[in-house]
């Protein structure tokens, strides 16, 4: 949990490995200097505020296995000044870390259910801890579907793991790229197209979605067609965040503080806000 008395003050976290997932996306394996025997506990779906020395902070989801508590990983898209700065760090360097913050995916409540995970682009990162959790207690869940789409085959994250998960007989991994290339023999098109290859038992399905809002919107339409009840659908939202603890005001979406009340929301809490522009 929060390792500092003041949640606005970061703790040091040491970089143990840097993995480049794609041309512009990398994973930092971190060893945070937290109390509690250096065991960092978090829920799948939660995020940390990562601080690049002297540059600033960025809210980044935790993408590692929640059962591995000595190290945590963050998969980061190199986009702005902070993430660019983080991308230049090497093994042995140190960053600051505050967290974990926010709500998690309903990993416990989904037990006994089919689980449909839909991810777009880097949206797979906050869902990877869910997959690890499910695989650890595989028998407690029914069918598992993972639908994942990226802009191009080169933008797919965790390719080795995707391949590995795809080999398990009881998890359906479907992957697509918005645009293929000469080497790509898989599906081409947006992630919602993958719904035509699966059959969901809507009533017994828990759905977890993370990706661009437009992608989540169309995914919701697909899930509705299968009759997945809205309270069994969960989405993770993105907003500008400065504090991570509901105090700075930046992440508001209607009455919700995305950092504190989310980022993972049961659909009925936010569905009326998704259709409106500039909420």
């Amino acid at each position, binding site marked *: 949990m929060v390792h500092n008395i003041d949640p*606005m*003050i*970061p703790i*040091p976290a040491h970089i143990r490995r840097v993995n480049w997932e794609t041309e512009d996306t990398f994973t930092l394996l971190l060893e945070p200097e937290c109390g509690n025997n250096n065991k960092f506990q978090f829920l799948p779906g939660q995020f940390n505020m990562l601080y690049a020395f002297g540059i600033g902070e960025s809210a980044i989801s935790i993408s590692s296995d929640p059962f591995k508590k000595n190290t945590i990983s963050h998969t980061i898209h190199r986009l702005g000044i902070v993430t660019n700065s983080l991308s230049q760090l090497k093994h042995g360097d140190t960053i600051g870390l505050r967290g974990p913050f926010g709500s998690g995916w309903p990993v416990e409540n989904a037990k006994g259910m089919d689980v449909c995970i839909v991810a777009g682009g880097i949206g797979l990162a906050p869902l990877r801890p869910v997959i690890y959790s499910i695989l650890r207690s595989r028998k407690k869940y029914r069918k598992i579907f993972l639908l994942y789409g990226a802009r191009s085959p080169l933008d797919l994250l965790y390719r080795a793991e995707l391949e590995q998960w795809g080999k398990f007989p009881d998890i359906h991994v479907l992957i697509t790229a918005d645009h293929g290339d000469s080497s790509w023999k898989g599906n081409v098109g947006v992630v919602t197209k993958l719904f035509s290859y699966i059959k969901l038992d809507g009533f017994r399905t828990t759905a977890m979605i993370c990706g661009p809002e437009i992608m989540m919107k169309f995914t919701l339409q697909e899930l509705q067609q299968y009759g997945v009840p809205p309270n069994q659908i969960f989405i993770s939202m993105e907003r*500008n965040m400065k504090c991570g603890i509901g105090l700075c005001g930046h992440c508001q979406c209607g009455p919700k503080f995305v950092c*504190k009340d989310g980022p993972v929301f049961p659909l009925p809490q936010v569905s009326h806000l998704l259709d*409106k*522009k500039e*909420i």
Partner: protein
Amino acid sequence: MNNSLKLESHHLNTLFNSLKRDNYTLIAPIISNGSIIYEQVNSAEELPRGWTDEQEAATYRLKKQNDNAYFSYNVSPYSWKKFLFPPHIRLFTVESKGKSFKINSSDAPIPAYAFIGVRPCELNAIKIQDKVFNNGQYTDTVYKTRREKVFIVAVNCTQAGGTCFCVSMNTGPKAKGGFDIALTEVINEDGHFFIADPGSEKGTKLMEDIPCSTARQSEIETAERLVQTTAQNMGRSLDTNDIKKLLFASLDSPYWNDVASRCLTCANCTLVCPTCFCSTVEDITDISGEHAERWRRWDSCFTMDFARVFGGNFRPSSKGRYRQWLTHKLASWIDQFGTSGCVGCGRCITWCPVGIDITEEVKRLKNEY
């Protein structure tokens, strides 16, 4: 039982001295650059004695009056949040040490403030920010460490300001708690005095050291009448009936285009608002690159980058930003904190450079509904 005390005006400074003796840093209204602001003072003589303020939409003027009243004006462009939630404050420093670094939280001493001249609407604003900065899950350390030390001398309003609407927001013109001492200033043929009501043990104790007498019933009634007259003279009101429903049902109203055609998104309303709490952070380094700091400063939902994330801006238009401000202030605030975010102080009306008037805007929105 009557706890009201009568404090002669020439003893007001004794109150200041007692607070100084108890090591409080005194903050009170003073005149600076043509307006009344809240700043550190040493004595009651620094108050804007004999001055009043004329406030209207986009208008603020100080005017000399022919009395020696200490508190014959209404709210300032400043609010007390400036001291509890400082506009610019260092959160931590970081020293680089090879491949690692050491983070030091601020150890600057926290001042114990005595706020003198807090208006009832402003007391309510402080109560609201108490909820904002302790949201049930997290507490803001900067706010908490300052807030728990504060001594509050409230002043009931004996005149309605031009842009005030506290009556309709149920926040004034009489203080109903949240103070250590509440004063009502009376000037009449019997003299110039204050009715002083202690509101806490600290307040009761402090008044013991100050030369005053038990107030007579007639004096208390005189003070009461002044406050009642203030309520009756209030020119503006905001209709709060079904306000949450109105705002949430009006997200697609054409009204927002109208207000957006007037709003300059200058952020004045959010900076003068005593409850607005948004902030951002800034990171800096020195020239050696070995010393870094993180500062927090006030931010506003009206600024261009407030809702920007890499790859897009969730609120690019002034229409979206004004709607966010008003809907948050009057509606979603209630969901978040169980109270309206507006206390009816009128600052956003006075200090809007184009005179956008929140009370009128709600009427317009209602007409479109």
